[in-house]
């Protein structure tokens, strides 16, 4: 138990470190004293100074919401990955396998390409793409779950089928797109936290709590539906509830941020290595580690090529890929670490 507590303290410290590092870095340089004054004013400790206006604007309306969204999205992907692996009894499962991300992408691309047909009124326009992405995510997951809920093995295959279908449909729409639409949709697919604002940050915590309530049940379902049943659980119902929560959380995340891969796969594995497979530890641990991964990837995305940005999805892949390789080699050496 002591080693697990140590691992949690370590993780929390890394999250804090990543947060502070993010807070102090950016294309707009904010002197330390100004930052202290702005944060103090925001907390009501001191009065806002007029000369700090632009610092306050960048810090409170650009940088802080972005940090929060990075944490929220990273945490969502992390615990969603852990929950998926438990619910599907497969250590290689991740949120993308449910067709959630590709469904969201299909929704967004369809909205962009068919926008002229769908919306005549321009006042709806800013919401069309994120809403379509969210609907796409929820719909594709619903199809996968409806087809394959009774058996976790079929679930994976159905997810793969839906992913392939969505991929083809996206390809078709891309071939129909004009120049302007093409720019918008490539832009959407690469993923970014740049449009973060405060209103997006609240959603994931509640959904996370729903998943966490099933932590013990998830432990039992890893033994199989029958054993879970012997232990008094309705494994199918647990799976349905957890998958629904994951689809909502990931759908919302993807709709805000676009495609961000690998976090949901890598975070639970690393946490598992640190503190075992119990979901009561793995779910919060994966959430913390997911937040760290996305914070670091976004730090790189917004500072390496400043004043321009790099795509977040590519950077999480660059961070996550080597982790996964290391993990695969490790599995070969130690056997069954996942």
């Amino acid at each position, binding site marked *: 138990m002591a080693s697990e507590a140590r691992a949690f303290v370590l993780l929390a410290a890394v999250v804090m470190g990543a947060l502070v590092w993010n807070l102090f870095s*950016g294309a707009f340089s904010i002197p330390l004293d100004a930052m202290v004054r702005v944060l103090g004013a925001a907390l009501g400790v001191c009065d806002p100074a007029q000369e700090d206006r632009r610092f306050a604007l960048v810090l409170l309306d650009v940088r802080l919401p972005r940090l929060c969204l990075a944490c929220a999205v990273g945490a969502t992907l992390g615990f969603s990955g852990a929950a998926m692996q438990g619910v599907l009894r497969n250590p290689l499962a991740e949120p993308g396998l449910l067709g959630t991300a590709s469904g969201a992408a299909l929704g967004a691309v369809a909205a962009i390409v068919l926008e002229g047909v769908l919306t005549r009124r321009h006042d709806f326009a800013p919401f069309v793409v994120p809403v379509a992405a969210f609907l796409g995510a929820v719909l594709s997951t619903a199809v996968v779950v409806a087809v394959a809920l009774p058996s976790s093995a079929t679930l994976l295959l159905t997810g793969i089928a839906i992913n392939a279908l969505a991929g083809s449909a996206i390809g078709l729409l891309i071939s129909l797109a004009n120049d302007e639409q093409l720019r918008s949709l490539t832009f959407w697919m690469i993923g970014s936290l740049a449009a973060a604002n405060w209103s997006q940050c609240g959603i994931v915590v509640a959904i996370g709590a729903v998943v966490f309530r099933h932590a013990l049940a998830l432990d039992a379902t890893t033994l199989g539906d029958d054993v879970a049943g012997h232990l008094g659980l309705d494994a199918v119902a647990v799976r349905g509830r957890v998958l629904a929560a994951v689809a909502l959380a990931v759908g919302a995340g993807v709709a805000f941020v676009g495609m961000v891969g690998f976090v949901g796969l890598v975070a639970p594995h690393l946490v598992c290595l640190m503190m075992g497979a119990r979901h009561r530890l793995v779910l919060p641990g994966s959430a913390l580690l997911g937040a760290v991964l996305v914070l670091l990837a976004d730090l790189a995305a917004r500072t390496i090529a400043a004043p321009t940005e790099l795509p977040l999805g590519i950077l999480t892949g660059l961070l996550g890929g080597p982790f996964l390789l290391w993990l695969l080699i490790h599995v070969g050496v130690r056997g069954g670490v996942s």
Partner: protein
Amino acid sequence: MGAIRFCLCTVMAVCALAIAPLARAEPSPMRIVSLSGSLTEIVAELGFADRLVGVDRSSLRPPELVRRLPKVGSPRSVSIESVLAVSPTMVIAYDDMQPTETLAKLGDLGVVVILVMRRSSVESAREKVLRVAEGLGVPEKGQALVAAIDRDLAWPSGKPKPDRRLRALFIQTMGNGPLMVAGGNTAAEALMAVAEVDNAVHGFEAYRPLNPEAAAAANPDVIIILRRALERVGGEEGLAAMPGLGEPPAICEHRIVIADDSAFIGLGPTTGASVRHLREAVYGR
């Protein structure tokens, strides 16, 4: 099936070859396919709108014309069969069009191919008009159109140049990501320079996603934004709500200029008018 298609193509090509000399003497049977938005505009502007028989998907103007024309492909993938299906005698395209074999094959089949260089300088708008006009056999119309463009581009004589050049941010796209803005070596920057406006962002070339903090740091006096991008973000109000665009002078003093795709990205016959519009909006002259 393939064999029949091939035979048909060959027959069509032979026909095209047969009537090609006639076409020179008598312009009526000319059938034109344009494979880019700005080229389509030039063709229409030079008075050949009713000769167009096919366009690509990037052709959006003039809308009433392109709406009824068959689309023979997307900007980066043109299907040779779709082009041949409208039996053109002339194809107008950029020299960097993909796949490159398409144009060569069309040439082999006897279709007159007019290639236009793609460059992102203001000079390129003139070049394109002249090249297309020459290909259509109406060089004098091209000269007139270029003269009209030049009139719009030139700083009005007798009016003083501004004391302070304003700094503009050119926004190409936005959605739920960073702003995609024009950096160095872009048509948009070149047009800004003609209108005596500086680019508010530096240090990169082409169109790149801009970090919101960098947008705040740039603090632009003017925002030039494509019409579709402004619609997608929810108008001027939505624009002001974008991270990093909180309160630069452009937003506070409502200096937001709506730009047209074809003028600022494609560089075509409307480029001159767009520059004039920009100049008038920014400096009032």
